[in-house]
């Protein structure tokens, strides 16, 4: 007896012919199904009136997802593709409503793997009340892509009266982080490089809109941003650039799991530079800090939320050590060069 041949993605799956239609029907349509998608037109047709009743401004964002490995503790590339874009939309204050989704598949990818990812996407979207309303699939020859790349775009409506943005930030504001730092980056690093660190490292991949919704009623929220690639440090540098303000975080106040701390100590890396996929940085007025913090902590995705620093006028991003000195944090680079002589 021979093993059943593992079914794999072939170039035919992207040819526009029968096998492509089969893939779309049996996988994408089946799992993503909703009224808009099922019309199977070349475009999603979205009712304007309902959107207009929610507010005056659309939030629209796009992101592409390439990650190795594609499945990891706490998530996979599919979940990442849904929440990554949804989170970017949500940082404006909008509830993410619709997503588009484009797949680039590498010839030879196991269909079972693809199916797991599609199911994961569907579940992620369902849980968040997001509809995947239009999509596309391409197959490229082996080696031209790595297993699967996904692009998603999303829209939501910004509620009236919400005008968050980096330009609103002022010296004296407080900086809040919605949970522990670096879980996603450390998990991926450990897995990808085969470091074999045990423990319970998990990606923090999650939908951030519930946290956003909890912050919306609080007056004095200045700006939110999800801290993905480049970590919290990258976000603070973006904030510093657009606001002209300085951002000082307090080393002792940073929530970090023991596992992530261990990998940082081993490699001499900083948790603030590690990627997250389910953490937001909120800058809020001083008088709003307590309210924002307790609103976040009430939610399952924000139990470890913490005040991690203050805004000043230095124009720089710095980290205050436990003894009171402040160390300058340079822009995160993929290859930090040692500087100690």
């Amino acid at each position: 007896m021979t093993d059943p041949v593992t079914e794999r993605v072939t170039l035919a799956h992207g040819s526009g012919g029968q096998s492509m239609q089969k893939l779309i029907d049996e996988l994408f349509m089946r799992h993503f199904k909703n009224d808009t998608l099922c019309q199977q037109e070349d475009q999603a047709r979205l009712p304007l009136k309902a959107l207009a009743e929610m507010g005056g401004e659309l939030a629209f964002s796009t992101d592409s997802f390439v990650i190795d490995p594609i499945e990891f503790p706490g998530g996979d590339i599919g979940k990442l593709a849904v929440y990554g874009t949804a989170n970017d939309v949500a940082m404006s204050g909008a509830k993410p409503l619709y997503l588009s989704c484009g797949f680039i598949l590498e010839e030879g990818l196991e269909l079972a793997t693809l199916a797991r990812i599609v199911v994961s996407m569907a579940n992620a979207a369902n849980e968040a009340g997001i509809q995947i309303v239009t999509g596309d699939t391409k197959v490229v020859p082996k080696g031209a892509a790595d297993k699967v790349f996904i692009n998603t775009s999303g829209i939501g409506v910004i509620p009236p009266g919400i005008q968050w943005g980096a330009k609103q930030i002022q010296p004296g504001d407080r900086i809040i982080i919605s949970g522990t730092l670096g879980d996603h980056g450390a998990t991926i690093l450990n897995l990808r490089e085969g470091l074999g660190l045990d423990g319970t490292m998990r990606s923090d991949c999650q939908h951030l809109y519930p946290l956003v919704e909890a912050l919306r009623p609080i007056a004095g929220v200045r700006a939110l941003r999800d801290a993905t690639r480049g970590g919290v440090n990258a976000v603070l540098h973006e904030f510093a650039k657009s606001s002209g303000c300085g951002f000082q975080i307090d080393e002792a106040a940073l929530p970090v799991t023991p596992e992530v701390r261990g990998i940082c100590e081993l490699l001499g890396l900083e948790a603030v530079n590690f990627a997250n996929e389910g953490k937001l940085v909120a800058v809020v007025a001083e008088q709003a800090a307590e309210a924002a913090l307790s609103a976040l902590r009430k939610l399952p995705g924000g139990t470890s939320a913490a005040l991690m620093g203050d805004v000043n006028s230095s124009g720089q991003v710095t980290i205050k050590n436990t003894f009171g000195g402040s160390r300058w944090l340079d822009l995160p680079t993929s290859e930090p060069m040692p500087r100690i002589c």
Partner: protein
Amino acid sequence: MQGFELQVKGKVQGVGFRPFVWQLAERLQLKGEVLNCGEGVMIRVDQTANLALIKQALQQQLPPLARIDSIDVRSYDWPQPPAGFSIAVSQSSKMDTQVVPDAATCPECLAELLDSTDRRHQYPFINCTHCGPRFTLIEALPYDRANTVMKNFPLCPACAAEFKNPADRRYHAQPVACENCGPMVWMVNAAGEKITEDWLTQTLAALAQGQVVAIKSVGGFHLACDATNAAAVQLLRERKRRQYKPLAVMAANIDAVKQFAVVHAGQQALLQSRIAPIVLLTPKANSDIAQNLAPNLAEVGVMLPSNPLQHLIAHYFKKPVVMTSGNGSGLPPALDNNTALNQLSAIADSFVLHNRSIVQRCDDSLMRVSEQGQVEVLRRSRGLTPDALNLPEDFPDAEGYLAYGGDLKNAFAIGKGRQIIVSQYLGDLANLETQQQFKAAIAHYLNLYQLPVRQRVVDCHPGYFSRQRALLDHQHSDSAEQPIVEVQHHHAHIASCLVENGWRADQGQVLALALDGLGYGDHNELWGGELVVADYQGYRVLGGLPAVTLVGGDTAARQPWRSFYAHLRTFMPQLSEAKLNLLLPGKPLKQLDISMARGLNSHSVRSAGRLFDAVAASLGIAAEQIEYEGQAACELESLASAAQRRLATELTIPVDGLSLNLAAFWPAWLQHKGSKAERAYNFHLALAVALAELVRRAKRQTQINHLVLTGGVFHNALLTSLLKAQLGSECQLLEHQYYSCGDGGLALGQIAIALIQNEK
């Protein structure tokens, strides 16, 4: 009427130069005048004057703080024949004068300070034209009281009379003051409440009780405690969270120093000089100073009081006093009362404060002097800054050059005419507060010397704050500036040594050993163990140390065991897991191996500093974590110095071509027997022998006879002396003296290189 004018340039303002000329003129019965001008001092005489005699007297009888760089004689037309000799009103024109470093209290002022009949008895700000603060209180030039922090203290009639009398030691001494008109000292407790009793009595009592006192000095705060009380020293250490960093000791006078340390003539002269630096001395066994002042180190830093306030404490306390920089951990020293009260309230039990502000931070300079009298500066600040260095004669004008230095032990430098002025020591620019001092100090110098920047010069390291700051400054500057010049780290080290030694550009190439922790090299490499042939124009690496792969970025420099691991893995790949586990117990070897193999925050580095770390760690010295830069190497050197004799067993580091063969060294080192001290000594000796052999081969190959020793590793006095002994007279050595061979000297070399490279 015909006459002459003598234009005198150099350190001639604010040092009693005009009254000196006036007194000279009285003696020689000259007719004419003397005045400050933008370029220094102008002396005008009638045609009867004997110019040769005047010039000779000027050079030979100069006041203590003055220095003449040049005297130009021109003819001068007197509108009316001068009747006598006068000190005329200053003419302000283009500024070309020097700011004088702060000078330690002179013997005359010290005598007055302790003389109960003197009107300045125990006045903590006594000074005269021969001593006192300059650099730390000057806000602008010309050096007049109105341009210093003394502008807030109008002179009383008695002080004014001294100030105006050319025969007085205080004639035009800008910081002159007394109890009636000058700054005052008071004392507060840790809560900031004023203590009403006399500050001196209270300070002495606090020290006697083993307390820690924060003292506002001339260039920043100090923390003081009784240096003979180990418990007090420990208390200070615990509050400062510094268990190992050496603490400097102040003693009242040279006799007091000799009670607890060995002092040779060169050291005595340096201690008693106007610089009054901290000098590294060997402590005497069984002396009464505490054992925990410089843990695991063979030397202790000692200084004599450098200002009247310190003199009062040292004189009346009668015992040595710890005098360490008054900073919170990870912060630069506090400069003003409020900052000190904020930052030091958890460290000091009380504060000695005063109301004279500090314009520029200036830490105590740290120096060493060999028995042969060779001087070495480890930290260049008070007493030395901002002395200028004259450029070699074939250099172009440096006006408007600004070199940002390196990121650690930072000092920057500016070009002013044909001179380079290197700033005071500022420290690690990773620290935000230090960055702020750095930015403010650059602005201060540019303003003080009225310099529009023409050329900015930086280190190549892309991650250096100094470099990024320069790029930003350049962007915001006007278009007149030339593009930024980037200088390779070790090239700057070498040029720094060359220019300090007056090496002309036309003298050509030298050989150099550039040994330090790490600097950014070419091709994205990291260097620090280099044998180089270089001139100001360029350099070529001939060889040196082989590379190792360090895991952990900057952490590797703070945890010497990582260097040990890196050397073992690189040079003894055959070492079994079990053996490695024995040498590095409890370390996550599997993860380190993977990280090294996969290049995770791992860097290939040639570094003499990390070789010292590795060797130190292999002996269990500071292996886990160092507390101050170079700690492992310093402790290793100290241990080695304690070895009385070398072992009969030969330890060698073979030389392959122009590189050290560490693959042959490491197995031999692990086998090497003897006490820790003997092994530490033999490592120094083997390294010196190998380096000498490298130099010999390079000399044969290049036919170059001059050798520069540079990079922070050469602050290791044992290695340096062993290497020099090995080389004998084979090479003509060029060594750093008044500028650090470490990164504090980088800015000097950066300017020199930029000047020559811009010329072509």
